[in-house]
């Protein structure tokens, strides 16, 4: 653990110059916890039906040691917290959507689960196997699709891509050919099986990535922004395929995405990551109940009536005037419509229609992230 001590000391020196001392203090606290000599941790008791479990996983990226700087200029000067105390579990048949802004820690979480990163503190398990100590075994159980399609062998055909992957998976040759055809058919690439990767459309490449992840019937699917580069129709079809695969294979899936309307369409749990912390874990309906203040859109017969009503409602407690747009007034309120009219005492005239509006998910999440709760909230 000398490395952590050294990094911590260097980081401590750097605190004076850092732009965000609080973040560096967080990083150093995690590094100190990792460096502290602890008795060997017993294996935590995991939910028996959870295929993916992370137990208070933190990851701090530290600056490269001096000898490595001779070879490669370090991209970071101070320790950076990528994940902090991240605890999740995903059961068979579940799809967990991981959402958050760039740099939130989504990719780090996926790299910990695929064994490409080791947690600084905490432990991660896939099918009960520790991703740090049983990385090789874990890699047999996961199907991974990275965010971009450069990992495909673009000079090879779809079939050759899958055969190569199947060979590395140790699949028997006879079984492999059959399974490759099945998988290509499943993702709709059967007719393009002998087309080279470079000749595929972006949507087809995304399907090929999914086919590669599904080929060996993994217990856990880890899909990093699988729909990021495809059009909405292709994205919808891809998500339907993922849902179907998860249901048929009884696997668990983790999906990161920036397309929040797609996440909403999955009707599954989400984890909202921000700055390495889990801000929310649960279903989107609960998230709305906690964070989404109901909004009313009131349409008036005339603009002047709308302006007058805005002034009246602005005086009321528990009512926020969000927007005045011509003859339409939008208010956010936690009290009922009846109470509003009763408190207005007849001053709201000329109302043509009233309807409840839901905040678009992206605005809701942006609101949560901007408000940055002091403590992580959990459902």
């Amino acid at each position, binding site marked *: 653990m000398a490395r952590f001590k050294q990094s911590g000391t260097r980081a401590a020196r750097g605190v004076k110059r850092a732009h965000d001392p609080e973040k560096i203090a967080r990083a150093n606290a995690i590094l100190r916890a990792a460096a502290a000599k602890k008795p060997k941790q017993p294996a*935590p008791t995991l939910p028996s039906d959870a295929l993916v479990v992370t137990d208070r996983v933190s990851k701090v990226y530290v600056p490269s040691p001096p000898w490595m700087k001779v070879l490669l200029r370090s991209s970071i000067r101070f320790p950076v917290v990528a994940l902090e105390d991240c605890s999740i579990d995903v059961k068979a048949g579940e799809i967990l959507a991981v959402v958050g802004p760039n740099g939130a820690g989504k990719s780090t979480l996926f790299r910990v689960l695929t064994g490409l990163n080791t947690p600084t503190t905490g432990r991660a*398990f896939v099918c009960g196997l520790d991703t740090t100590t049983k990385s*090789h075994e874990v890699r047999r159980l996961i199907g991974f699709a990275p965010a*971009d399609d*450069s990992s495909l062998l673009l000079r090879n055909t779809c079939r050759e891509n899958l055969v190569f992957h199947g060979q590395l998976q140790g699949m028997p040759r006879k079984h492999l050919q059959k399974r490759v055809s099945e998988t290509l058919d499943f993702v709709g690439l059967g007719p393009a099986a002998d087309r080279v990767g470079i000749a595929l459309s972006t949507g087809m490449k995304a399907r090929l990535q999914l086919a590669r992840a599904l080929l060996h019937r993994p*217990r856990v699917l880890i899909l990093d922004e699988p729909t990021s580069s495809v059009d909405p129709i292709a994205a919808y079809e891809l998500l339907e395929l993922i849902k179907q695969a998860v249901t048929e294979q009884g696997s668990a899936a983790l999906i990161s995405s920036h397309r929040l309307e797609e996440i909403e369409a999955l009707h599954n749990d989400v984890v909202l990551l921000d700055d390495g912390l889990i801000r929310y874990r649960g279903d989107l309906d609960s998230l709305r109940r906690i964070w989404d203040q109901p909004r009313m859109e009131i349409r008036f017969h005339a603009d002047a009536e709308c302006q007058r009503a805005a002034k009246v409602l602005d005086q009321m407690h528990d009512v926020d005037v969000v927007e005045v747009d011509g003859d339409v007034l939008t208010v956010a309120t936690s009290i009922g419509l009846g109470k509003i009219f009763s408190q207005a005492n007849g001053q709201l005239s000329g109302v043509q229609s009233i309807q409840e509006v839901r905040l678009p998910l992206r605005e809701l999440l942006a609101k949560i992230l901007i408000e940055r709760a002091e403590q992580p909230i959990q459902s």
Partner: protein
Amino acid sequence: MATSTHSHLRTRRRENPISRLIAANNAFMVLGWRQAISYPLGFVMTQLSNFVPIFVFYFVATQVNNPSQGFGSDYFTSVVIGLLGIKILDTGLRGFGLQMDMAINRGWLEMFLVEPVRWRYLPIAMSQWPIAQGLFAVLTTIGITIWLGADFQTSGIPLALLIGALGLVSGLAIGTLSAAVKVLAKSGDPILHLYTLAAQIFSGVYFPISDLPEPLRLLSYALPQTYVIQGLRRVLAPGDFATGLSTPTLIWTLVIFSALAYPLAIWVWGRSLNYGRQLGVLSGY
């Protein structure tokens, strides 16, 4: 192992490491071939470039045929043997590194590392195609140079094969050590670059190492290239080789170097990847 029970794990097939290694070897061999033939002209030009030095030194030899002690009686044959030795070692030295470069540049390496192939198998599996290419170049070089008049001693072929194999393993060891640095540094190959420069000067490809000043000659004996080239000349080239190390000494030195260096290199490669996991640099190539 965590305390939860997962019945599906018990039902999975037992892994046979040999068949897994063979499967991985085959996969990378086929991948290498497909990549090579994806750029046919580039592939042909690369193959042709192997033979340019042969013709250069054929004509040099006609001007310089002045036998030197420890260099055999035929300059052309001795230089060709030197070039063969360098080619064999280069195949080992650069084979895995070049495959790594390709994997890094095309964005494949992260995917290879996520595949369930033991990381210590990768230097072996990814070297298969470069080794096959290198052997093809060696065999065709021998054929062409015999046609041009090189005078190889056929009785020395079995020992030459042994020395060549040991040279290949030595090259693979140094190449794997270099790749262990490259996987953390992500690009560039400073160690191998320096090593190749040194080897060209000190291993006696173009002139006998007896011509080097005494302190530099010591440096020559630190390089496996020197033993491979000397050994190949002793068993294949015509002429008197009374000076220098004996053939058994050269072979045993290579045996010991290969037996120690290759397992060490594979171990260092594994440690390097584990260190990369801690630093979090095994992605974003």
